[in-house]
């Protein structure tokens, strides 16, 4: 597929053209930092440096709360949740990879989640690679990278006066077919930027080893040690681009069945009706979070469930650092 080019002076014009047939969702400035929302003017887009949003864009496909159906006169009515086609512009490769990972959960051919499936079907993901890695990011160690391609329909590399636009799927290619082609020099420059973006000291995580070590440590007290300062809030999981747990609740007053994000870090998440809680303390809950990311995902998809975006590290109120936790657990010597 031929790489294309958007000159910076023509950027607004190009994006505006998409407004006719698509809702365009893009990173904009907001009170807490960068936030993904539907834009009406390309000037709203904020792509400065390598800053990612605090709230992950997974909510484009898995909203924090959504009505699954309403019961009216004995009929079940499903809401039309994505009537228009959508472009998610400016997703970072870590978040696009997260969507790709979540497709293995929600978008299976034989076990499709209708809500996720419909939204995915009607959406294109245009990622913008990170010329330099963000402070707490470690995408390059968990199977992706600042220019990782998984999940994206188009991957953009920012050049001095233009955007180098690389289509990765046929849908992506169709969207940009009228754009001018990039020449060889631009292609070379883009390659240079992509190569220069990784941090040399970073080493790829040895996922099979980590997985094995985690299973070995399953019944040890290390989990209590690493989770001692955990507050039990939902910051790490709600801000995680791959955490997808949800709770289904009937809002009886409105005759609605709704789905809300939920998190294994909450005590009530695993509390059972009998009063028994199979994950009674923070140690078991933290174990679940780490095992899910670095053992169960590896079991099921041979990939890490962590895309290395670093949000949980930057935003944790007590600075619990998943890198440090995994390091500590896997270096444990078990008799």
């Amino acid at each position, binding site marked *: 597929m031929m790489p294309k080019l958007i000159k910076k002076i023509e950027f607004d014009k190009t994006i505006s053209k998409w407004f006719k047939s698509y809702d365009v969702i893009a990173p904009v400035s907001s009170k807490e930092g960068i936030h993904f929302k539907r834009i009406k003017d390309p000037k709203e887009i904020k792509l400065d440096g390598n800053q990612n949003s605090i709230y992950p864009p997974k909510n484009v496909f898995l909203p*924090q*709360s959504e009505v699954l159906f309403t019961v009216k006169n004995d009929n079940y009515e499903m809401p039309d949740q994505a009537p228009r086609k959508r472009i998610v512009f400016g997703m970072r490769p870590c978040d696009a990879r997260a969507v790709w990972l979540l497709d293995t959960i929600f978008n299976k051919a034989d076990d499709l989640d209708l809500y996720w499936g419909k939204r995915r079907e009607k959406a294109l993901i245009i990622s913008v690679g990170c010329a330099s890695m963000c*402070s707490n990011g470690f995408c390059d160690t968990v199977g992706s990278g600042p220019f990782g391609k998984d999940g994206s329909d188009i991957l953009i590399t920012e050049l001095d006066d233009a955007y180098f636009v690389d289509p990765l799927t046929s849908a992506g290619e169709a969207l940009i077919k009228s754009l001018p082609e990039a020449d060889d020099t631009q292609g070379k420059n883009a390659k240079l930027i992509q190569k220069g973006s990784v941090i040399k000291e970073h080493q790829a995580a040895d996922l099979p080893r980590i997985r094995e070590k985690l299973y070995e440590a399953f019944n040890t007290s290390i989990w209590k040690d690493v989770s*001692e*300062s955990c*507050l039990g*809030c939902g910051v790490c999981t709600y801000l995680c681009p791959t955490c997808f747990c949800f709770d289904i609740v009937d809002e009886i007053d409105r005759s609605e069945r709704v789905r809300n994000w939920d998190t294994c870090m909450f005590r009530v998440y695993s509390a059972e009706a009998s009063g028994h809680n199979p994950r009674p303390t923070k140690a078991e809950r933290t174990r679940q979070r780490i095992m899910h990311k670095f053992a169960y995902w590896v079991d099921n998809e041979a990939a890490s469930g962590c895309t290395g975006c670093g949000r949980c590290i930057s935003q944790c109120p007590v600075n619990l650092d998943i890198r440090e936790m995994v390091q500590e657990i896997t270096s444990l010597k078990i008799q």
Partner: protein
Amino acid sequence: MDDFSQVRKEAARILSEKIVDMVIGFKQGTIPLKSQPMFITSQEDTDKLILDGFCQNNLAVFLHDQPKDKRIGIICRACESRAVRALVIEHQVNRENLYLIGVPCMGILDWKKIQDAADGPVTNAQESGDQILLEIGDKKQVLIRNEFIVDSCRGCGHREPIDVDIQIGEISPIEMNADNLPQTWGESFKSKSADERFQLFTEETERCIRCYACREACPMCYCTECFVDHIAPRWSESMVTPGGTQAWHIIRAFHQTGRCVECGACERACPMDIKMVYLTDKLNDDMKKEYGFEVGENEEKQPPFATITLDDKNRFKY
């Protein structure tokens, strides 16, 4: 604090003399501008203890999970000492099993504001007197410390740790030069009309993602089951809607009436940068005005809204 080694020595002493089983303090964080709470059981680890403006939590929150009969030492800034007293008054901790090491506090720093003011991603940050020294890769940058003190610490009227077992270090005044600083959020909120205030409240709460970091970071939020988690009866809508989120913020604040120690740990824990201290501050002001009650000033008095007396001048109406 200039000489923190005394605090480390005291922590090591109470551990070695078996006065306590554990000391709660802070250690260096894994990333710049952050620190980590630390639970020390062996005296060698006391060397790792630190205290600076990046220690953003209220350590008293960690007493919730500890058995009441465990003997615990805790490095106490004024906020932590007030929280401990409030927890003692509400029978949540046994004061005799705690050993409070009082330390001075120069105000907690807003790491997000510092990062925003920096010329790039901060790779190292140190406090030095009234300055914050930043390293951004090879570059260096100096910020004025007072400009980055969080709102809840700027107006702090309780800088002296109370009821401590030992006080280390002197409480020196913070020269705020408040004239040069913009109004705090709470002050500017107060000066607005009711409609404007509701607008601001709406704008703040609509960013809420219900991660409940505010609740979990709060030393006074210790209910084993929070009202939002209650299923029968259901007090709060399950969906993250503007109405449900506003209800959460209002009820959370009301449950803190006359109990909030004004440490601001809730606001600092919030990933979405939502202002909330102004709500509890207002409720505490009312408690002072209406009942002459202030959290932590007295060893016995229960918070007015947690008390019932037979000679109450106001009868219950129904």
